[in-house]
């Protein structure tokens, strides 16, 4: 489903990924862990093909759903308008997309009254639920979730992991970036990234 090998990436002179390899099969749940600056988000952006690796190869089969760490939603649009905007790109009509998105939002415990509120008036947790819903809307075969539960309350957080298990049972590959050690029991495999050490000048 996803095979990345020998991935390298630097920002200027700062190397963040050095020959990283990652394989995720259908229905597999993989956690990516690592301290700040270890390159977790960079690796996710490369896997989502939003960033070209400076070296290495990447092969992905099927549609990818990407939930970035920062939602980047339009502040003055409503959740329903976001769902409408994403629908045609995913092969859904506007009506189908909004209806499917509302179902997903309801599954994550998103309050129905907030569906027509502008994003700037929503809590961080509700924005994150919409962020996650947009990643799921098109029936992805591989989910790339970069700390997807920021702002979630405890119930929503537990509910999220129930969903991960369900997606996995449906054959969807799931990669979750996490800092929470308790999550590591809920995945099949853990990939630890370590910051690339700069070479000491001689």
């Amino acid at each position, binding site marked *: 489903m996803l095979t990345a090998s020998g991935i390298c990436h630097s920002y200027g002179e700062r190397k963040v990924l050095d020959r990283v390899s990652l394989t995720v099969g259908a229905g597999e749940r993989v956690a990516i862990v690592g301290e700040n600056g270890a390159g977790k988000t960079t690796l996710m952006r490369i896997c989502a093909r939003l960033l070209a690796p400076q070296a290495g190869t990447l092969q992905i089969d099927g549609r990818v759903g990407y939930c970035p760490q920062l939602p980047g939603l339009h502040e*003055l649009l409503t959740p329903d308008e976001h769902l409408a905007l994403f629908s045609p790109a995913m092969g859904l009509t506007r009506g189908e997309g909004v209806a499917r998105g509302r179902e997903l939002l309801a599954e994550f415990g998103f309050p129905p009254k907030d569906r027509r509120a502008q994003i700037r008036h929503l809590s961080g947790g509700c924005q994150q639920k919409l962020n996650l819903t947009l990643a799921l809307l098109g029936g992805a075969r591989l989910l790339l979730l970069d700390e997807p539960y920021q702002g979630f309350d405890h119930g929503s957080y537990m509910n999220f992991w129930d969903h991960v298990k369900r997606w996995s049972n449906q054959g969807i590959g799931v990669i979750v970036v996490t800092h929470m050690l308790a999550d590591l029991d809920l995945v099949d495999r853990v990939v630890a990234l370590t910051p690339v050490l700069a070479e000491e000048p001689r």
Partner: protein
Amino acid sequence: MSDVATATAGRRSLARRHWAEHVLLPAEMAGRELTRRRTALGLLTLLPLAFYAASTSNSDYAPVLGGIAMAFSVSGAAIFCVMSSRRLDSRLVLAGYRPRELMIGRLLLLESLGAVLALVFSGVIVLGSHPADPGELIAGVFLVTLCAVPFGLAVGALVPSELESVLILIGVVGVQLTLSSDDPIAKFLPFWGAQRLLDQATGGAGATTWPIIVAFLYAAGLFVIACWAVNRRYANVR
């Protein structure tokens, strides 16, 4: 109806649906977002009016100054539209939009809003300045809008941050305002065609066809650059 005619009608229907969903829907959402920024829209309207009002003592130059100053508003709105959408655009492209579809949607939206602004503003200038040739003045103001949208889209797509974009906007429009349309350098700036018509509307003489052609060429060229820049940005996704 023959099978061929039915198949052709089906393809046309699909193409219309694709166009409506992939171009007009992003344009609609960008329009909804922009029209909810009432304060910003008010300022965008007032800015060229302020330039015009402040320069009415120089009756020949006021329409030129006010007309070209409209580029600050329209290009500014286009830059904002592109830059504020960058983060979400990457996800839209990943989901299946083509980058140029998003740009065409924005072009249509902003040209429409710009045309409304141009209509109001050219009315104000015609009534306030009584130009020798009102037709040329109206054409000049509309040409400002025509070029200002793709100029803003291109700057927003090419330049990494808002500060640099705004400085480029101020620089290009500011230099255009300070130069006469007879100056050779002015001819290499995007609003020369509009500036030329505005000059001629207030008493100058000259051909109208060439400035209009130049303005259309600039608009087309700048839009191609804007599409190239966003295609390049998301080349890895597609």
